[in-house]
């Protein structure tokens, strides 16, 4: 409760002083267990803010949409997305006040390594449980026969209705025109055949490689329950193992896919050594 109180006080102060035009946080949603993004412009409305299990939507996304001076109430993953957006020159760090707070989620992110904000202008610490994601689930998946793995992925992506909720909620997906919408050339068919869906999901996973912070928003947003995390987490695992990078932890290092080392592994080449 005290974290929420502090959030309200800080939000109120920022609005009253005129430091920001809007505070982006969460309010109670209309369905059980779901909170909804909330834009506070009037200091009195801070009373509607909540900070509880269900506040899981990644709010970094909204900073790209808003041109006002904004404060955002951010947990670990939101701040990591903000870090990446600043690095990619999508967001001016000076324009945003980050009210950082420990993640209140108790359910949705079992595998989160960073519930606390990595950058913040104010940090409101709460109780969190730091997990250690060892990607063991991916390792057991890898041990399945290849056909079984392929069929699983086919089965999952074939549920996709191509509503692009996964893309639109993702702070890393900010392209003005996504490859699925380009038509000169048209890269991908507009059907929901498994083949078109495969191309969409594989490409999206690779396009956010090194920038995906594993917030899980795409998984929660998917109306059809497609297992998107398996692709994203596989890439997160590889980025960590091959390039020794966890995305969005600091403002100083380059994004892993914009960077290289002379001795980066080349196991993927013909005759290259296997990756373990």
């Amino acid at each position: 409760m005290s974290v929420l109180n502090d959030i309200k006080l800080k939000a109120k102060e920022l609005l009253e002083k005129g430091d920001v035009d809007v505070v982006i946080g969460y309010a109670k949603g209309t369905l059980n267990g779901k909170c909804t993004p909330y834009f506070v412009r009037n200091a009195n409305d801070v009373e509607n803010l909540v900070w509880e299990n269900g506040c899981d939507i990644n709010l970094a996304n909204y900073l790209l949409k808003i041109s006002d001076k904004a404060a955002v109430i951010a947990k670990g993953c939101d701040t990591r997305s903000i870090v990446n957006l600043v690095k990619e020159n999508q967001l001016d760090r000076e324009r945003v006040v980050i009210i950082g707070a420990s993640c209140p989620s108790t359910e949705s992110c079992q595998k989160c390594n960073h519930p606390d904000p990595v950058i913040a202008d104010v940090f409101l610490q709460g109780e969190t449980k730091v997990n250690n994601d060892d990607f063991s689930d991916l390792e057991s998946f890898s041990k399945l026969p290849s056909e079984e793995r392929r069929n699983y992925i086919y089965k999952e992506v074939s549920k996709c209705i191509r509503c692009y909720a996964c893309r639109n909620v993702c702070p890393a997906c900010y392209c003005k025109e996504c490859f699925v919408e380009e038509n000169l050339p048209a890269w991908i068919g507009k059907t929901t055949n498994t083949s078109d869906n495969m191309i969409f999901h594989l490409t999206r996973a690779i396009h956010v490689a090194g920038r995906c912070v594993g917030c899980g928003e795409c998984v929660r947003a998917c109306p059809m329950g497609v297992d998107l995390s398996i692709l994203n987490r596989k890439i997160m695992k590889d980025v960590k193992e091959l390039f020794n990078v966890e995305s969005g932890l600091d403002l100083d290092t380059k994004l892993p896919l914009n960077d290289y080392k002379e001795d980066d592994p080349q196991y993927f080449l013909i005759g290259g050594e296997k990756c373990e």
Partner: protein
Amino acid sequence: MSKYIMFGEELLQWLQNLAKESKVLAPVKEEYGYTFAEWDKKSLPGDDYRNTLKPPKDLFFPQHETLLKYEKIKGENPLVEVPDIPEDKRVIFGIRPCDASSLVLLDNIFMGEDYVDPYYEARRSNTLIVSLVCRTRGKSCFCEDLFSTKGSDILIIKVDGNYLVEILTYRGEAAFKGIGSKEADEKIVKKADKLKRTQEEVLDKDIFEKLRTIYDNPIWKQLQEKCVNCGVCTFLCPTCHCFDITDDKRGKKVRSWDSCMFASFTKQASGHNPRPTGTERLRQRIMHKFYYFPEKYHDIACVGCGRCVEKCPVNLDIRQVIEKIRGCLDEKSLSAI
């Protein structure tokens, strides 16, 4: 038309008979929700589902479908063919009344006075709609009438463990011909009527007059603030019917669902976009459902199935949108301030 009362066993037998000459589709539980799939013919489809994950428009206007097939032949004129128009007879059993009524709304579009979509029409004319009334409303539902008969050929209400079968159309009657079921007696009919009368109050969706005055109202900007412009609400909406047509480069002209929530929907080749931001696009969706569509076809393009409420990734609840529109100041009052 007639009303019958049936035991579960009788209903099962009737359905099994229908299945001999028609493909019977019923809600089947899959990993992540219910979907209309071919009925196994063994036991009466259960009634423990709220609704199917995808709306039934999928069965008439599939997410993607081939409109034309073509073949390019070097040195010759290309061949263009119309694919086989679906002819198989179908029964959709257990569709919810809200969804059944959505089909009537779609008919306005695909079976209009000037043009008829042959693929949609074929499926519509080959399909018998047998709807099953919900026992209660779900937490995201806001249909006006749980017992709505619109769009159904036959409506089934569960009363005291038996089934009250209301025949609503000639097609429904034909499907019931020769069944020696008991006509429902007055007692049962009264009991069903009583159920109907105990319906709780629901959201009043009539905001037509209000919408007439608030096109330029700042409320749209406020309403869309949390919207991420994905296509969940439109794709899962039983009445949304926008589509795209593309050539797949491999001999097919394909129609696929599209959404007014996408920036690309109205963006012209020149780069000009008449609805450039989320504000215009959300306004279009709401205005279309509750103002433009009623103006043209005299009916609201929302049946209250609640799928958009349930699945919106940011909990942008259309019921709240309607409430906020109802409560907002119209242009006259705004300018008076």
